[in-house]
């Protein structure tokens, strides 16, 4: 069962899964068997708002570390997200087609974006933030966002 780091900023509660690694945009990556699943952190999904559409690079696409792997359209913004891992996209979460709101409902679980066959996971992992590092960054970002909202 996944464990989380958790913080409350203003009225918002943000969770960071302890079994994932994160890039600077808040895209998480988790090794499962011989593939790496990716998705959006709880902070990113809350900051972005309700997801209307999610477009993921198609299965079979080769992506490099930091290549755009997904574009999310929410009620607030359209955002592109970079891949936290190099490799070939094995599977796109089928829920992204019909029910992308699952990203908001279960960002670390059913709301995963894609599964990637990594080229060199160990090398990529060293370029990512571990949960504690991401948690610290996320808290700062969250506090800045809330402060902006109060201006």
């Amino acid at each position: 069962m996944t464990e989380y780091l958790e913080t409350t900023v203003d009225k918002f509660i943000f969770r960071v899964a302890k079994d994932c690694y994160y890039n600077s945009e808040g895209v998480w990556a988790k090794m499962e068997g011989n593939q790496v699943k990716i998705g959006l952190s709880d902070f990113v999904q809350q900051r972005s708002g309700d997801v209307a559409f999610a477009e993921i690079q198609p299965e079979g696409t080769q992506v490099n570390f930091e290549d755009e792997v997904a574009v999310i359209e929410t009620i607030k913004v359209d955002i592109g997200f970079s891949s936290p891992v190099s490799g070939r996209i094995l599977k796109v979460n089928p829920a992204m087609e019909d029910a992308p709101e699952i990203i908001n409902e279960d960002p670390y679980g059913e709301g995963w974006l894609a599964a990637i066959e990594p080229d060199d996971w160990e090398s990529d992992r060293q370029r990512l933030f571990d949960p504690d590092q991401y948690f610290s960054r996320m808290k700062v970002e969250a506090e800045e966002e809330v402060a902006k909202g109060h201006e």
Partner: protein
Amino acid sequence: MSKTIKVNNKQKVVIVPCSGIGKTYGTVSREAAYEVVENVRPDQTHLVALSLLVLGDESSRESVAQNPAVTIDGCKLACATKMVEESGGTVVKDFAVLDVYRKHREFKPKGIAELNEGGIKLAAVLAEEVAEVVDNLDNNTQIDSGTEGGSNG
């Protein structure tokens, strides 16, 4: 608690849109509501402002408590739906702007004070969907609701 209300030919359907000022989807919900009550079904509907329900305005609370309500929410917080239920009203249909947009991606809404063309068209489509619900509330229709709205009002 289940609640049954009876729609008769003297009743108007209450339309309660999102009050999200400064939010595009909130604006779409309000524009759709105005379209329904002013142009599409003016004789069968009337608008109740969510802010008045929040403030506890007696005539607004009474209106939603005694008439069937259609709510139009701008986000998943669903404030309009929740507030109608808390005011003792019966929501016969709750619309979410996002759900309608997912069916009409060609009408991407933008703007706040003034919607873009996509937003205006999306509001028009939404208004037609609301009108369809209003039309289906035939006179003397019994409506069962699973809401937990109280008996106040």
